[in-house]
């Protein structure tokens, strides 16, 4: 049954001012509760991962039941509340660099603007982070699949960099590296300069 709202327009009964108020209240409470729950679990999860502590089964189960179901995952995705907001926390990840050796020179991915270069550095850091923490997982099947996947990603990137730099060599060496700066404590003790630590290298042969 239509009712007249304050604006003098006829709306279906469900959208009357009273129901609209209830709807907004309910959504507001739901929305804020979602954010609090997701952020709380995100903190707990990252804390356990950082300090290598086993997660409490009950907490994990509650999180899975409440938040890890299709409607909630969709809601989180659309509202930007699917994950926590702890950027650069609890620790700042090491920066990763993907570099190749071609014709005796170091070659890198090339970009036309800063934004894409930054996004690529995020990709590098993400893969580097995976390479460092891959042994943390206890799921061997997962490790194996991820290993294969990242190898594929790695080769793809290598081929692209090879083509971008118009490399004429038949063989290209591509490596993932971490830029290791001395820590504040090491610096105070006199250690200077940074090192490029190679954590993975592959060889691409042109066929």
């Amino acid at each position, binding site marked *: 049954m239509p009712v007249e709202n304050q*604006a003098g*327009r006829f709306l279906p009964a469900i959208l009357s001012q009273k129901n*609209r*108020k209830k709807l907004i*209240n309910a959504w*507001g*409470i739901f*929305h*804020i509760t979602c*954010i609090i729950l997701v*952020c*709380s679990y*995100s*903190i707990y999860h*990252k804390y356990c991962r*950082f300090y290598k502590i086993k997660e409490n089964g009950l907490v994990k189960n509650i999180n899975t039941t409440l938040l890890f179901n*299709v409607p909630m*995952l*969709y809601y989180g*995705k*659309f*509202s*930007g*509340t699917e994950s*926590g*907001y*702890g*950027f*650069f*926390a*609890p*620790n*700042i990840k*090491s*920066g990763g660099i993907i570099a190749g050796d071609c014709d005796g020179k170091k070659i890198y*991915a090339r*970009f*036309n*603007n*800063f*934004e*894409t270069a*930054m*996004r*690529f550095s995020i*990709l590098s850091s*993400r*893969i580097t982070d995976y390479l460092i923490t891959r042994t943390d997982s206890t799921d061997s099947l997962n490790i194996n699949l991820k290993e294969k*996947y990242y190898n594929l*990603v790695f080769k*793809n*990137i290598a081929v*692209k960099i090879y083509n971008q730099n118009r490399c004429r060599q038949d063989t290209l060496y591509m490596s993932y590296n971490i*830029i290791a*700066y001395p*820590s*504040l*404590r090491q*610096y105070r003790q006199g250690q200077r300069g*940074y090192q490029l630590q190679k954590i993975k290298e592959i060889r691409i042969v042109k066929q």
Partner: protein
Amino acid sequence: MKGHIFQLAKNIPANRLWLVFLRVGISSVAIIHFAALQGDFNDLFSQDSFVSPDISDALKNQLLPSFYSISHVTSKIFGIGYSALLLTVRIVYPIALLSVLVGFLTRFSALLSLLLQLLILNSMGLYTYGADVFTTIGLFYCSVFPVGKDASLDHLLFKKPVITTHLNKFLLIFRIHICLIYFFSGFEKLLGYNWRNGESMWKMVHAYNVLPSVDLDFLARTPLFLIAGWLVIALEMLYPLFINITKTRRTWLWLVVSFHIAIAFFMGLYFFSALMIVFNLTAYYIPFISHKNNSDGPANPDAFHDGPLALFI
């Protein structure tokens, strides 16, 4: 032009100006952000990209489609291949954002922008970062809040009456979200010992510094990095408290805005910082701007002063 914009802003009731600012701010940043990718668009998305679409697709969120998964369907049904689909999105997404900016079919345009943004993100999962999440949040609120009621083509063309009953509730929800973002961000930093001993600030200065000419190594023996680490934690964790106290609001707001400007120039996170500044100004600066010809009654910018839960009762 400047005078015209100022006049336009003056004609908007004070309690609705923040909605216009949110709409214009988010859509502007999103348009520029998308434009910034255009120079290397093919290197990110095309068949010849760094991570080819089929490989990228394997890691996508299964709830949402990607360019690659949609192109499978469109090529079979409409004969639209991957490249054509990519071009379509490349044209439609900025148009949708422009529609949000000028307030044309605002809610529909915001929803379309949100869907396309999620599609783009799902097709480049390995390259996403914080700015993308905040764009999603901004577009989501543009889809939910009545952001197209003022200073918009919708207002000019359709002359719809504005229902102002729930605006303070929307503002409160938005503010709580911002406060939670800062609180949890600070809390997570507090848990990492490297933020408490200055090592994280030191690492940030070296690993994420886009201004190599700025060398702060000579300060290594001072407690600057230790203090800076604690200041960041305090600034974020105490944000919900001090931003909602009238006496400290302005100071805390400018501290946070300065913090984001520093992040932008020092770490190169321009779009992330721009979005956070838009969020902060929308929530805690614009609602406090008042003007004389307020035709809609007094604004209630201090939503928290009634008690956060008062608006839900």
